[in-house]
């Protein structure tokens, strides 16, 4: 994540440098005076066009090239070996020097001896102080190397740590799935409860209306009944005349008598 971020944030800068370099060219048809930065990238190294076999990346050597007699490269000696054997280059060198000195092509004037003296002094200096100086210099180089190596390893450490954190976060998010399910169930239960509540409300509302209707019917019927009874009673009362009353009372008395006789 961090690296991606770094890449994203560095890309606009790189393109800016590129465009600046191209913008520098002017209109004379010269493609580029300041070459665009050739940042080595992993992608470019792995492209199929790249010929890493014949053109490998330059690697900084750990040791300088080997030399004999302090300054003559080992390769020159190797060049002689197939034809002359191991003594060949020395014989050649000695012969050449003998020839040059003998014919005074190499003139031994005072500066030549001064040079020899210098060489002797330098040789003695190297023999005396060389090893210590070499250790000191190599230690300095090592320190510097370690500095950059530490920078790199620290950065790698930090990035690995962040990757680990990211994976942990992903694992935690996976754990959240259970919680999500539980929450989903909870929501479903709530929805069900709300649905039932509303169903209940509808049921109650319908029941109330039906109850009202029933009650209305009942009341209407009761009133009608009441009214009818009253009306009938009043009509009957109205129809009862004194003679009829008398007759009925007589009839009643007669009935009572009959009853009494039977009992």
């Amino acid at each position, binding site marked *: 994540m961090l690296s991606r971020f770094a890449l994203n944030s560095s890309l606009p800068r790189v393109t800016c440098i590129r465009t600046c370099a191209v913008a520098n060219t002017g209109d004379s048809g010269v493609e580029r*005076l*300041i070459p665009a930065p050739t940042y080595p990238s992993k992608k470019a190294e792995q492209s199929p066009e790249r010929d890493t076999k014949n*053109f490998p990346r330059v690697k900084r050597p750990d*040791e300088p090239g080997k030399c004999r007699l302090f300054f003559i490269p080992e390769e020159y000696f190797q060049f002689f070996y197939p034809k002359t054997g191991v003594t060949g280059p020395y014989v050649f060198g000695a012969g050449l020097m003998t020839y040059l000195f003998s014919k005074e092509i190499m003139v031994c004037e005072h500066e030549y001896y001064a040079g020899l003296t210098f060489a002797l002094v330098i040789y003695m200096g190297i023999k005396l102080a*060389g090893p210590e100086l070499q250790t000191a210099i190599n230690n300095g180089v090592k320190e510097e190397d370690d500095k950059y190596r530490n920078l790199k390893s620290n950065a790698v450490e930090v990035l690995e740590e962040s990757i680990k954190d990211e994976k942990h976060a992903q694992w935690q998010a996976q754990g959240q799935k259970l919680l999500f399910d539980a929450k989903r169930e909870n929501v479903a239960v709530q929805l069900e409860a709300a649905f039932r509540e509303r169903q209940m409300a509808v049921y109650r509302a319908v029941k109330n209306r039906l109850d009202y209707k029933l009650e209305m019917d009942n009341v209407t019927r009761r009133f009608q009944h009441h009214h009818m009874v009253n009306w009938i009673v009043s009509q009957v009362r109205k129809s009862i005349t004194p003679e009829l009353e008398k007759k009925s009372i007589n009839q009643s008395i007669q009935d009572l008598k009959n009853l009494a006789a039977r009992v």
Partner: protein
Amino acid sequence: MSVYDLLAKMGMGQLPEGYNKKIHGPYNPARYYGKPDIPLGQVKIKELGPWLARRNKDPVSIARLMSRGYHRWSQKYILARTGGLAGYTQLLVGISLFFYTINYCKYANHRNYKYHW
């Protein structure tokens, strides 16, 4: 046309023609990106003439040759991780030889013998 454009047209500050970043990767100033010829060490004496005739002898090529030589030497002897005296000794010897050569006419007056057999 500015001086810079002129120099650029002459090839200064430009990458060599044979160099292709896609094939060759990061540019190495010590490397020759043209078609390689036989190394000098493997050339037979009789092939030396044609070999020399095949060299580019224009100033830009010579300058590039010297630049490559410097970078090759520097990468091998000076820029190695651990220090060594070889490069600096070579530099001293080279400087001595150079000044010996340019002052040779003066030194020749110091010859001790008139006749050499």
